[in-house]
């Protein structure tokens, strides 16, 4: 067993795992949006909540990331922004993930 080779493998594996974590954190930052003066994350929970509520109400209230209420007057517009930002962030993460996969 070549220990130096194993050490190299181990270091590389750590670097790749860390790069993934950092890229995921970058994606989380990119998901942040300000809509109607409130701060939201374009995460699955918000997207699903807005999608469900808009099927029942023309306008509705949801809580922003600081747990303050925000009236959503145009659910279609808001949902569209959320989805776009979510996919922008995740496409970037996916691109980096594929690069890292080739290295490992």
């Amino acid at each position, binding site marked *: 067993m070549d220990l130096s080779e194993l050490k190299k493998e181990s270091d590389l594996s750590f670097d790749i795992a*860390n790069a993934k974590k950092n890229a995921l954190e970058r994606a989380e930052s990119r998901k*942040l949006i300000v809509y109607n003066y*409130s701060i939201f*994350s374009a995460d699955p929970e918000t997207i699903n909540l807005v999608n469900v509520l808009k099927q029942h109400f023309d306008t509705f209230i949801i809580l922003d990331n600081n747990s303050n209420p925000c009236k959503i007057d145009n659910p279609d517009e808001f949902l569209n922004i959320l989805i776009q930002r979510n996919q922008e962030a995740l496409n970037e993460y996916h691109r980096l993930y594929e690069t890292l996969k080739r290295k490992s």
Partner: protein
Amino acid sequence: MSAGVLIYCFDTDKIKYHLTTNFCIKQIKQHLSLPVTVVTNLATKDYIQGADSFEIIENKKGNKRFYKGEIIDWFNLERSNAYEYSPYDITILLDSDYFVYTDNLLQLLDSKYDFLLHNKVFDLTGRSTFEYKNKSLIDLVWATVTIFKKNSKTKKIFDLIKHIQNNYQYFCNLYRIDFKNYRNDYAFAIALHQLNIKDFIPIKMSMLPADANIMEIDSYNIKFRWLNSFGTLQKQDVHVLNKEIPFNV
């Protein structure tokens, strides 16, 4: 409504803060396109490039900190005056070692919040270097990026921070803070606690610890090394704590 960035920069014997400030300004111009005001002293002003305006002051001295095994000067006693120094209606108050690589901060200027900063951080080296839970009775906040509007509410916050700064040892004892030299992060945390303000920038601030060596840096990425580990950052705003940054590489 005017908006801009306020940065403090005072060179010390050990650290030429103007180098990080100049890079910080360059990044702001590239990614945020906002005017930049630098609060500085006469000795440092001539070295600063790219700022739109200056606030020249004679900065308070006397505070020290531990950095890489040495006790060094820490000219951090002017941040509580940011409300007065800022010429903008909405200000992004930035540490000169916070480098923006995205326009993420821009949208926060449109929020309803009068005063925002981070209360969570993320260690880019994969450790938990910034775990301060057992260092005080109060949760730490980070004054590195502070977004504030000028109004009577934020004036009170800054007035309270000044009061805390003037009586820092008392508040250190009250909150059992295990960091006796004045630190803005704790002064801001105490002020927000006293005023019961619980609104924050709801993402983690990315941090590169002081023991992470910066190998390369340019307008688009940072390459760093920590022990045998290497990393590259792109399109990610970052707070760099190591002050030996090879800007000319």
